[in-house]
């Protein structure tokens, strides 16, 4: 007698290779922008990209951190009672590395999508062109802040461990953080805008470095001459024309540090801060405008 067919169906599963619709959750604007920000932030350090693209950002990060590590080492070794390089001077001291970092990584976030046409795929998705630009801008800002703040934090931790005055150190470090934030806002604006206009990575890098470092070089020269000629007012006004000289002006006004020029009048000091914020706002607005034009093409 043949065995009866089993009542239960066979347990083996035949995988359905047909198309399955998606009916799970869908996120809206803010979450998508956040996802774009996070992936952009990672991409700025070469994470989620090829191994080759990790080399430059991490190399720069390490070189940038090196002076801080040496300072902390020296401090513990020789029992120094103050930091040989003030928090607020660090960004100025390493401005070449910082400029290279911003100049080289801004194209990763802005030029790439334009050059390869993938911007069309982003713009065909829920985020508006303004939200896209803002998320990219925020990624670059965050990466620049990491670059600026890691050495400051290293110095601060070293100083606190070396038992320097805690209140004084905290106050100085906090001021440096605020100044770094203002600088990062300006650098992100410059780097982002240039990278969104120039589709070629090399061209964007060179242009950004020229604007940041050459601009600063010219301003510094003018300020030096003005100081020698006793025309301090001319030097102070010249300081408004480059991000790094604005930083120096604001640092001089707010901390005990002095650079090319001595501390000026109170009105001029406030002007440095106001101009820094204005520069950041204007550059951000131009970036949004640029992407609105790209979307309409």
């Amino acid at each position: 007698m043949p065995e009866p067919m089993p009542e239960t169906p066979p347990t083996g599963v035949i995988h359905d290779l047909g198309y399955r619709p998606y009916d799970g959750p869908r996120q809206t604007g803010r979450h998508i922008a956040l996802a774009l920000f996070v992936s952009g932030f990672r991409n700025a350090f070469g994470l989620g990209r090829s191994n080759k693209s990790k080399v430059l950002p991490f190399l720069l990060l390490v070189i940038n951190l090196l002076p801080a590590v040496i300072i902390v080492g020296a401090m513990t070794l020789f029992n120094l009672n103050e930091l040989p390089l003030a928090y607020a001077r660090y960004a100025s001291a390493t401005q070449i590395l910082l400029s290279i970092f911003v100049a080289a990584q801004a194209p990763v976030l802005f030029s790439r999508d334009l050059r390869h046409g993938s911007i069309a795929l982003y713009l065909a998705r829920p985020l508006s062109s303004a939200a896209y630009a803002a998320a990219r801008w925020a990624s670059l800002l965050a990466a620049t802040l990491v670059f600026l703040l890691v050495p400051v934090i290293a110095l601060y931790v070293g100083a606190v461990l070396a038992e320097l005055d805690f209140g004084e150190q905290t106050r100085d470090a906090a001021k440096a953080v605020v100044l770094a934030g203002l600088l990062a806002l300006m650098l992100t604006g410059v780097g982002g805008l240039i990278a969104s206009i120039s589709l070629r990575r090399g061209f964007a890098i060179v242009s950004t470095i020229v604007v940041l470092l050459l601009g600063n070089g010219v301003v510094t020269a003018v300020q030096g001459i003005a100081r020698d000629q006793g025309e301090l007012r001319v030097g102070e006004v010249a300081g408004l024309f480059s991000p790094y000289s604005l930083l120096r002006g604001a640092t001089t006004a707010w901390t005990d540090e002095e650079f090319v020029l001595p501390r000026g009048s109170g009105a001029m000091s406030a002007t440095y801060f106001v101009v820094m914020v204005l520069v950041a706002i204007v550059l951000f607005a131009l970036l949004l405008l640029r992407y609105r034009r790209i979307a309409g093409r």
Partner: protein
Amino acid sequence: MQPGVIQTAGLTKDYGAVLALDDLTIDIAPGITGLVGANGAGKSTLIKILLGLVAPTSGTASVLGLDLAADAPAIRARVGYLPEHDCLPPDVSASDFVVHLGMMSGLPRVAARERAAEVLRHVGLAEERYRPMGGYSTGMKQRAKLAQAIVHDPRLVLLDEPTNGLDPAARDDMLGLVQRVGHDFGISVLVTSHLLGELERVSDHVVILDSGRLLRASETSEFLDVTGTLLVEVLGDDAQARMGQALLAAGVPVQRRGGLLALEPAPDLTVDVHDLVRDTALELGLGLVRIQADHRRIEDVFADA
């Protein structure tokens, strides 16, 4: 009839120097719709307007029942887009890229991973999906572009010249995929081409644009109505001539068309014309290669217009 997936009323886009769309009113039904027109007929402009990227000079449009002016982000969340031009970064793998774009369409990360793997399999990118896209052939790039257009399971995809630059075999593959997306995946498709012939194969409806104006919109089958003419091909010594004469003698008007005979049997013919052709070929000792119904081609519409 189901509600249309795309409806426009008096849509006009004036670029100043060029009138890209001129008072366009169309109603596109679910299914696969071919959007045909020469380069510069306004196809790409229409797609950009439907995505909410370009504002029309005047007129209104709705996509998937959502008003374009008010709900553009919601429309973009439910629509997929395959651009005509290159849009793939060369240093990223198709897998990573499609996951990322899935998230940009609002899928959570885990869902985006699953969906990306699935759609890449559907478009036929196997192991190569882990390689950087810079090394892909044009056909593979088009597949990756299609995958990103459907990763978020849209209700409608806008495919701008998906067969552009493909060799004939890859073109057939892509048209087959378009057909699967529209019919098996249940995603409505608007596919543009400047080649009429390839769209009549895959689309349910055809919309023809000419200089930004609507030339004609109707079901593909209407374009391709059977004309009643029968095409016959025979092999043998002087086959076409002998066959033609024999059929004429049997009372069927015959014309030569290339290597074929075009028969136009009168409606009141007593015998079945297929049987007649078969028997005649047998009597004459000729090889009968094929008998086929003669369809109109979409090209003929232009001749009529």
